[in-house]
């Protein structure tokens, strides 16, 4: 990439968080720069921590809320302080693993065999989309990102409203029921969560091309981990809805 093209891509920041991260690209080279291999290896570490945490959560379902709340705090901290992602990302993976272990155990008790199906589908989608991205079958653009951002924000808002309504003994029925509309909604959310993986791949790819600082490997792995956790939970919900119709 030429110097001008690089400036056009990363130099003129509209977003202070990304602008600050990308503006430091030229200070790092060789072993100090972000690499694809480093980001993939760190994702492996985070996955191992998440699986480790899930064993704790599986045998102690009472820790679900602790895992969820502390995991959320770790995620917020990592998002705003990417320089410390080497601390925040592993903490997030472990805590979220504890929460996922407890949640999975509850689903498994109700629908035996559902957890391994959800794990298989989550990683299957991960590998398929990675292949589609690497081969150029999916070409993410700025408009693709805008579409996903809008859809993800809409879903988050809907979940937030539903969560608040639950305190008053009410909820948005169609997002939780097992009717055709509920299943269709779950399918839509799974699709949006899956497409977010493509953006994560692109962030890691472009970051390594531009030689971002090494700690951004942890940040890229963290972003991938957040999407995987969301995707796994949505697949679990979708499968539960499908099985409850039998």
């Amino acid at each position, binding site marked *: 990439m*030429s110097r001008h*093209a690089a400036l056009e891509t*990363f130099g003129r*920041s509209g977003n202070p968080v990304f602008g600050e991260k990308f503006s430091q690209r030229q200070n790092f080279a060789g072993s100090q720069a972000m690499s694809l*291999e480093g*980001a993939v290896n760190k994702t492996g570490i985070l996955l191992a921590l998440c699986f480790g945490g899930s064993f704790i959560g599986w045998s102690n379902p009472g820790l679900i809320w602790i895992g969820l709340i502390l995991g959320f705090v770790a995620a917020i901290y990592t998002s705003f302080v990417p320089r410390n992602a080497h601390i925040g990302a592993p903490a997030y993976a472990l805590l979220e693993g504890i929460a996922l272990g407890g949640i999975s155990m509850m689903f498994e008790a109700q629908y035996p065999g559902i957890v391994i199906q959800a794990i298989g589908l989550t990683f299957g989608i991960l590998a398929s989309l990675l292949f589609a991205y690497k081969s150029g079958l999916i070409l993410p653009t700025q*408009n693709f990102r805008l579409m996903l*951002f*809008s859809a993800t924000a809409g879903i988050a808002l809907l979940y937030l409203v539903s969560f608040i309504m639950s305190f008053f003994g009410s909820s948005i029925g169609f997002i939780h029921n097992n009717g055709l509309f509920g299943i269709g909604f779950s399918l839509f959310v799974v699709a949006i969560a899956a497409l977010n993986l493509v953006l994560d791949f692109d962030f890691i790819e472009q970051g390594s091309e531009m030689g971002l600082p090494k700690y951004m490997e942890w940040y890229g792995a963290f972003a991938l981990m957040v999407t995987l956790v969301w995707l796994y939970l949505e697949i679990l919900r979708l499968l539960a809805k499908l099985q409850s119709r039998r």
Partner: protein
Amino acid sequence: MNTLFFTFIAVLSLYIFFNLGKVRSSQKQRNRADRVKWNKSPWQGQKATQVSEQRDGTKIIDVAAEDVENKSDKA
């Protein structure tokens, strides 16, 4: 049987991820002008070419900077 099948899918997918993830993307993916611009916020979409005319009649074309090869450097 069900468990075995999904375990196999999970293991195979992880194997693919850890190998394919370390490989650079295709040229088709990397060499294009409309890639995601991570320094910009999501709602700053693809920038269209803007042409503005000055009072003296000259036109200013606002487009993305392009690579300009200087042939004399190669010699």
